[in-house]
């Protein structure tokens, strides 16, 4: 199998006049916990649906666990634990316990004992009818369904959406334990990066259908810095830095600029351009991702 659990090639999708995905090349390394960040409507759910072959792309292909998902959708779905975006599980009249039994049949690897543990940890009763669950309870049930067959790939679309802070923590702690116990790759989409960032070892930023950044946590933290630079009046930033620039603001003769690149080179360039670097501050994963999300296109 390839080094990527998920790889897409030039994935594009339009709904009417709206661009949902624009030539997305997603690369999720085998065994990674990849967090796909983006605002609502940036294309996160569409991406995950394409990976599940629930939506057909207009162009481009997607490989999931080494399989072309467009051709082998059923096989892909059998090996993926999927938490869909904001929808209640099917079969509203079934009890939760009956639904688990029903789903178990489709997965040879279904771990009934584990499913029971997860139900207890999530405080879900087997005799409740699926249709009576609250949004947060339905989300938890989806997580049980996704985790209990210990799939080699988890696709979690906004898994913490609608969970209160305590339950969210429980859910993420269970996910951390799951990752420790089960060899798996996890792709999590979220518009709330701070909720899941501590689990991430890879990050992708999706903005209006385009993947504007994709890198490992280490690389992101090494290469994104917020610089404070003293500059002469009327200073114009050099073009080669503008390409690497994300967010810029200024007060008096000092500018604050988030830039991507090796710190030494960036400082050298800023200095050559007449600036005096006062500080190069590393960013938290959240701040770095936000910088990519709010990047100034014109520079």
């Amino acid at each position, binding site marked *: 199998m390839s080094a990527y659990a998920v790889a897409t090639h030039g994935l594009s999708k339009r709904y009417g006049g709206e661009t949902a995905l624009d030539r997305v090349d997603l690369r999720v390394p085998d065994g990674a916990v990849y967090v796909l960040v983006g605002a609502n409507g940036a294309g996160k759910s569409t991406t995950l649906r394409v990976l599940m072959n629930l939506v057909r792309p207009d162009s481009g292909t997607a490989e999931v666990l080494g399989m072309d998902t467009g051709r082998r959708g059923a096989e892909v779905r059998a090996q993926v634990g999927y938490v869909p975006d904001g929808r209640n599980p099917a079969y509203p009249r079934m009890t939760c316990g009956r639904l688990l039994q029903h789903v178990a049949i489709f997965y040879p690897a279904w771990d009934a004992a584990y499913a029971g543990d997860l139900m207890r940890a999530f405080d879900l009763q087997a005799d409740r009818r699926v249709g009576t669950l609250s949004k947060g309870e339905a989300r938890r049930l989806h997580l049980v369904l996704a985790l209990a067959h210990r799939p080699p790939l988890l696709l979690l679309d906004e898994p913490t959406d609608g969970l209160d802070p305590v339950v969210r923590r429980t859910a993420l702690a269970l996910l*951390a*334990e799951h990752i420790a116990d089960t060899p798996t790759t996890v792709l999590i989409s979220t518009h709330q990066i701070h909720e899941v960032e501590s689990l991430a070892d890879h990050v992708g930023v999706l903005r209006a259908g385009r993947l504007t950044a994709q890198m490992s946590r280490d690389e992101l933290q090494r290469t994104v810095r917020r610089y404070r630079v003293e500059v002469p009046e009327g200073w114009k930033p050099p073009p080669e830095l503008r390409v690497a620039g994300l967010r810029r603001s200024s007060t008096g003769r000092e500018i604050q600029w988030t830039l991507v690149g090796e710190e030494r080179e960036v400082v050298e360039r800023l200095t050559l351009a007449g600036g005096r670097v*006062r500080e190069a501050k590393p960013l938290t994963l959240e701040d770095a991702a936000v910088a990519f999300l709010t990047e100034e296109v014109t520079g």
Partner: protein
Amino acid sequence: MLVNLDPHDARPLYLQIMDEVRRALVVGTLRPEDPLPSVRELASELVVNPRTVLQAYRELEREGVVYVRRGQGTFVAPDVHSGRQERLALGREVAKRALLEARRSGLGVEELLTFIREVAAEEEGEPSPAVSAANPGDEE
């Protein structure tokens, strides 16, 4: 062992975990031959990727702070005497942070040292009740 991660700390998470272990050694909540929490436990407690915990433990092992007993887990090395090495590493870490802050504000090293001594002397003169209540007998 109590481990706390600061979401506003931009340093890599495995370094923060390593520091917390060092801190536990320095203050004595962890002693030679004590077991560390399992990777699974700590990952769950901190809600971090288990690989991050593993990376922290591996680095600590490489530094000789902990060792792995196969099938039993990770333990504090027997020869970590009162965490002298850790005190050094921790002290340097604190100094680095203070320096960074000072530079941001345009202060030089000597100035910073002067201010630290001044403020420390003031605090000794009139100990704040919160601090002395939290650390009784902690005077070195």
